[in-house]
């Protein structure tokens, strides 16, 4: 077993800082604490810091900042991040309104049946979870969420749908997620959120920060319609509260 954290080469213009080798909330939190610490240094030549499940990739111009300089900065950021008290972590929890079932959640009954529970139990269990956004990837704004209750875990559809609408809330095995844009997909669709996960004209283009948390809230069709209107008026803000989760 290697000693973590460790720094690895990723070509001549990037380094990977690994904090472990597992999908684990504590490891993931270390990644985000480190990324925030290094980000705050605003080092010249650093193009972007990309946090993922268990490591952060630091992309930089080696003609502006040398590997030695950046490795020293990384070591200092690791020390500062490790010294952070839990209370100082400023992760947000976003609450997403969802219309469950019906035409927008055509697989809600399938998920219920697979787990021998009622559809309303699926909704109750799904809305009681607080899901860590381990990272964003795959598609713009696609959140890799952790922490779903095994009682609603359901295999993927045997035949993926050719088109799943943006905002579709789905379950695949013991993962839950939201489709950020219209795309093909094989997840069980249990509902739909009107919240836009990817808007190239917004700043930032993705409202959900990686390293934050998501919870889902069941809303009636009329409330969803109201939110949809607010979104199109540009007056909607995703309810978010600061906490360490």
């Amino acid at each position, binding site marked *: 077993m*290697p000693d973590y954290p460790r720094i690895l*080469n990723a*070509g001549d*213009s990037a380094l990977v800082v690994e904090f472990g080798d597992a999908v684990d909330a504590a490891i993931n939190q270390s990644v985000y604490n480190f990324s925030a610490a290094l980000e705050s240094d605003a080092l010249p030549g650093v193009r972007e810091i990309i946090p993922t*499940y268990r490591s952060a990739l630091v992309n930089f111009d080696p003609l502006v900042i040398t590997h030695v300089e950046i490795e020293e900065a990384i070591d200092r950021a690791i020390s500062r991040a490790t010294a952070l008290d839990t209370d100082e972590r400023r992760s947000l929890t976003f609450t997403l309104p969802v219309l469950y079932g019906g035409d927008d959640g055509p697989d809600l009954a399938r998920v219920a049946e697979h787990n021998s529970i009622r559809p309303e139990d699926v909704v109750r269990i799904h809305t009681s979870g607080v899901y860590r956004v381990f990272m964003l990837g795959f598609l713009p704004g696609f959140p890799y969420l952790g922490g779903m209750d095994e009682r609603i875990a359901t295999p993927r559809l045997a035949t993926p749908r050719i088109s799943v609408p943006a905002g579709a809330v789905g379950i695949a095995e013991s993962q839950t997620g939201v489709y950020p*844009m219209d795309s093909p997909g094989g997840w069980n669709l249990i509902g739909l959120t009107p919240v836009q996960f990817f808007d190239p004209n917004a700043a930032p283009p993705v409202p959900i920060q990686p390293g934050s948390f998501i919870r889902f809230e069941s809303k009636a069709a009329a409330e969803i319609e109201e939110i949809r209107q607010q979104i199109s008026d540009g007056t909607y803000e995703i309810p978010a509260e600061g906490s360490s989760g």
Partner: protein
Amino acid sequence: MTGKVLNIEAPGLMSTIQDVGRFGYQRFGISTSGASDQGALRLGNLLLGNDAGAAAVEITFGGFAAVFTAATAFALSGGDLSPTLNGTPVATGVVYMAVANDRLTMAAPVSGFRSYLHLPGGVVCEQVLGSAATYQPAHIGGIDGRALIAGDELAAGEPSRVMMAGTTLDFPVTPPAQTPQPVRVLLGPQDDHFTARGIRTFLDEIFTVTDRSNRQGVRLDGPEVEAEGDSYDIVSDAVVTGSIQIPGDRKPIILMSDRQTTGGYPKIAVVVTVDLPLIAQAAPSAQIQFVAISREDAVALLGEQEVAINNISVVAPDLRELVLTVDLEAHHVGVPGHRGEQQASRFQIELDGNRHTVAIENIE
């Protein structure tokens, strides 16, 4: 002079508008995209006096045809896809003057795989998240986030200087190709996922580019690269352009501009920055041999390339006795004996037995 200058007649295998790329959004899952061959993009822009990262049309393989709808300078960089203007071969790395109804075609590769069509001031299109780069999976950039189709009209930007046909660079714009092509890599970040035999296979054997390659990744065929414990999965992490991942079929995939931002396969090595254009220009059936170098050497190569590019001179054509009068105040370019204020027009001039074409364009 800005405005529509080019009408796409046939996009060929695939043509997209690309620039230096979209940076700073990978943490949100948004890929950098941008020109596959960043070296060619930069040299072509240098030739026309454009910003180094200005947008151009990336033309893949050939089957391309477009008609100019107004007088404009243009230049090609990157691979040689046998370009012609009105049926006459044109060279890569030279500024040409086109007038309305001139037809540019590219049939098939002579060398390389991707050509870049540059216009003065760069190809103008809507910037999305700070870039014109087309990223088809997210439907952003370029024209409506898609590849070019017949009927698309492209606009040129504001030229930074007066264009002269025949202008070149004192630097080769097409990288020399070899068979097999040596490609330098830096091992890691997951080289420790592979057996000693796997690493030897990767570095000693020759791999072939397959036709299942695109802007997301170049898929190679060849001997199987053996991983420790036969495990070809890792906890997903971030990737860079040039990352070489080995998935379950044990054949390398080199990730390119339209790659996803994260990946779950172990990455045995990363192509060094200065050799990325070689991958962008490797056509299906091209052979590749990976060569591991040190981090220090990779950075030194990058530094040397930067110095070389900064020392490039733009070489004006030798026009001998031809005198062009350029009145920037009056926005007028003239040739003795002719006045070309209102309409674009073209002249043939004979000097020392050589015929030169001179195009007069409106400068507004």
